[in-house]
């Protein structure tokens, strides 16, 4: 058969595999098939270095590579940066447990996959097949490698006509190329055609992307949610859904969706960077810190390393510098300075980025107990921030953090009031604003309690019970918490439950609060409203939970 004619002796092969025994077993099997030139590496970093230096015809990558990047990340990075030509055959080697993840890749999909355990029979059969199939797309890939997109599109059309069996894969490539060229209407036609034949996942994703790029967010959301619900591991659907939600101004929901994707697939640099970025927008320091840390760990020598992320990470380290143990503090301080330094030296910074660098340096000094040095660093940037028009409201909130630390009370207060006015009804920025004040007051529990109570009752007034609960529950955790904030918190959670927002955490936390109020004097003027809340709370509990012991 023709398939024996594949000239393996002419093929240059790279094997990415962290286990020594697996490396040698792959090598001996490939040698058995006639391959003469093989190189092996044991992690993603080395793989990227090798791929940047040499051309390989075939790359085998283990999916699960221990600590660093996984095979999918390497693939995304090399394809994203054009480190390997389209004509290189990229094969993912996967354990049975991760097959679903590998097959769920809709945007950066490998040319094929081989499930472990890999035996000579399986390797030979699969490799022959994958190479033969790859050969079908030869013309398309050659044109792509020459950056001749129209040529590639024509080659797709030819393939679809000449070999109808490959019409759908040809459309798949075509759709992707058209999106890359921002030819959205044509891409839409392609996906319409495909979805008219069969509702395949990649076409749903493609259509979702097109709708997103064209600003049809509701449509995009519907498509992407339908994909996200099909239990298969289409993490990319979550990534795009998150973008759509953000575009609609649903920042918290966008972050939540991305967190789901990360739970499935935590090793994507881009995804972790995105999470950190959204968390910063939401003022969620904890998630921002985690995202930054993961992304930085994964992006050494990566094409995805960038200034924004370095600065963001330095900023995310501030709570550690302010409140961490001595040891944590020390590490975080030198890390923060290192990050800023690296941003300044490795990248060309914009004005907003330079301001941010200066501010984060000043903050680092201040939070590490050097207020005078901090103030000097702040003065150095303050000339740049005189003209706020170049700064976004998010940037101005960063400035507020510095003003609270370094300016006199009246000046900081004036700036603070000014920003609050500019923020207007923007809920995301409001939340972030109050988060900043809360952080600033962290060593003044009484003032903090007042702030949280005030914000909490505002939110109750706006009927945003979820956020009201978050803020007020935080207040109840303060040592100086009082009955008023406990009651307001319970008001928030009862109403949140009425709206259907339930979780076992909420349940336990609310029950705990009710317990605290158990001994309230029945003569207390607040007693009736507490009892009313208790009744409403009981009504919200499903019957089986009430009678769980019965």
């Amino acid at each position: 058969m023709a398939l024996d004619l594949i000239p393996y002796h002419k093929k240059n092969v790279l094997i990415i595999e962290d286990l020594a025994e697996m490396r040698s077993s792959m090598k001996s099997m490939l040698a058995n098939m006639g391959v003469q030139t093989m190189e092996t590496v044991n992690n993603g970093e080395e793989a990227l270095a090798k791929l940047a230096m040499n051309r390989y015809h075939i790359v085998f990558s283990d999916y699960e590579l221990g600590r660093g990047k996984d095979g999918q990340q390497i693939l995304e990075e090399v394809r994203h940066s054009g480190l390997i030509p389209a004509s290189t055959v990229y094969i993912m080697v996967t354990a049975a447990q991760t097959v679903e993840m590998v097959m769920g890749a809709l945007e950066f999909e490998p040319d094929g996959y081989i499930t472990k355990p890999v035996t000579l029979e399986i390797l030979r059969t699969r490799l022959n097949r994958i190479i033969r199939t790859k050969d079908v797309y030869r013309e398309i890939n050659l044109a792509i490698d020459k950056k001749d997109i129209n040529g590639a599109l024509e080659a797709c059309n030819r393939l679809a006509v000449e070999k109808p069996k490959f019409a759908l894969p040809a459309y798949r490539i075509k759709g992707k190329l058209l999106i890359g060229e921002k030819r959205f209407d044509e891409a839409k036609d392609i996906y319409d055609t495909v979805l008219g034949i069969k509702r395949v996942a990649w076409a749903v994703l493609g259509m979702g992307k097109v709708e997103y790029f064209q600003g049809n967010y509701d449509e995009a959301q519907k498509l992407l949610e339908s994909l996200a619900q099909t239990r298969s591991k289409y993490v990319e659907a979550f990534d795009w859904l998150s973008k759509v939600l953000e575009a609609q101004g649903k920042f918290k929901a966008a972050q939540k969706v991305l967190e789901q994707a990360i739970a499935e697939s935590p090793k994507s640099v881009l995804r972790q960077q995105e999470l950190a970025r959204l968390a910063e927008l939401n003022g969620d320091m904890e998630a921002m810190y985690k995202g930054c840390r993961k992304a930085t760990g994964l992006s050494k020598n990566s094409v995805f390393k960038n200034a924004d992320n370095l600065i963001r990470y330095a900023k995310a380290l501030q709570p550690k510098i302010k409140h961490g143990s001595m040891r944590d503090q020390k590490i975080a301080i030198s890390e923060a300075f290192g990050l800023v330094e690296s941003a300044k030296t490795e990248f060309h910074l914009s004005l907003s980025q330079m301001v941010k660098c200066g501010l984060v340096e000043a903050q680092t000094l201040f939070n590490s107990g050097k207020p005078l040095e901090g103030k000097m660093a702040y003065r150095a940037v303050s000339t740049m921030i005189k003209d706020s028009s170049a700064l976004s409201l998010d940037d101005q909130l960063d400035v507020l953090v510095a003003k609270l630390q370094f300016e006199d009370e009246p000046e900081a207060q004036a700036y603070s009031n000014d920003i609050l006015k500019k923020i207007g009804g923007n809920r995301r920025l409001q939340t972030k604003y109050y988060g900043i004040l809360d952080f600033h007051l962290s060593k003044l529990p009484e003032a903090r309690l007042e702030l949280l109570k005030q914000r909490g009752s505002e939110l109750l007034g706006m009927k945003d019970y979820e956020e009201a609960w978050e803020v007020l529950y935080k207040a109840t955790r303060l040592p100086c918490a009082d009955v008023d904030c406990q009651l307001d918190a319970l008001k928030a959670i009862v109403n949140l439950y009425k709206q259907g927002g339930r979780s076992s955490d909420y349940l336990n936390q609310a029950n705990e609060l009710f317990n605290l109020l158990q001994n309230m004097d029945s003569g207390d003027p607040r007693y009736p409203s507490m009892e009313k809340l208790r009744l409403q709370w009981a009504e919200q509990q499903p019957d089986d939970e009430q009678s769980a012991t019965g």
Partner: protein
Amino acid sequence: MTNNPQLADQLLAASIHEIKNRFGLVFSQLDQLLAALPLDENLNQSAEQIKCEAEFIGAELVRVLASYKTLEGDHLINQDQQFLVDFLEEKVARHANTIRAHHLNLSYDSDEELDGFFDAGVVNIVLDTAIYNAVKEGAKTILLSADYVDDYYLRIQIHDDGPGFPASMLETDFSQGQIKSDSQSTGLGLFFAQRLISQHQEGEKQGRVELGKSDRLSGACVSLLLPQ
């Protein structure tokens, strides 16, 4: 005591999932270990048996989980275009251990150009069930075939040279889940196969499993009919 069947189900499913994953790890270690040992012919045959059994257990756990999910109603299938030669060729290669352990003659027959839409994971599970059933019944030759039949059904068949299905089984309506006691495990497997396959729907047409006598080999034939 509280009777909470839902919780019990979740416990079982989570536990099986964990066992499946751990077992996958054990199996790959075992495979490396066996490969590194110098074995004589007798021991080697035992090693092949162990590998085959281990693979069977792995496949069985995957099947149980998928079947469980169909009962829960939350196994939404994912149909994508599959090329039958690729699909069947890999299925045969995957069963290299079964072939060696049972001196089985396993092959496939499909037109090079044939393609179809189905959930590869689900069809894999059902093919495994049918192959292991045939081996258990003593089949020495198994043939996988694929073609199109009446009005756009893709048909994948598993033919064998075993004793064939007893008449009572051929009369059983698996869609109703009636299982005769003398063929319980096979019957249950086919019942769930039917559930899994029937999730393939296209307009009015629904996927189904049919049992019969093989027209290619001397024994049984299981047909999966997948609407396109």
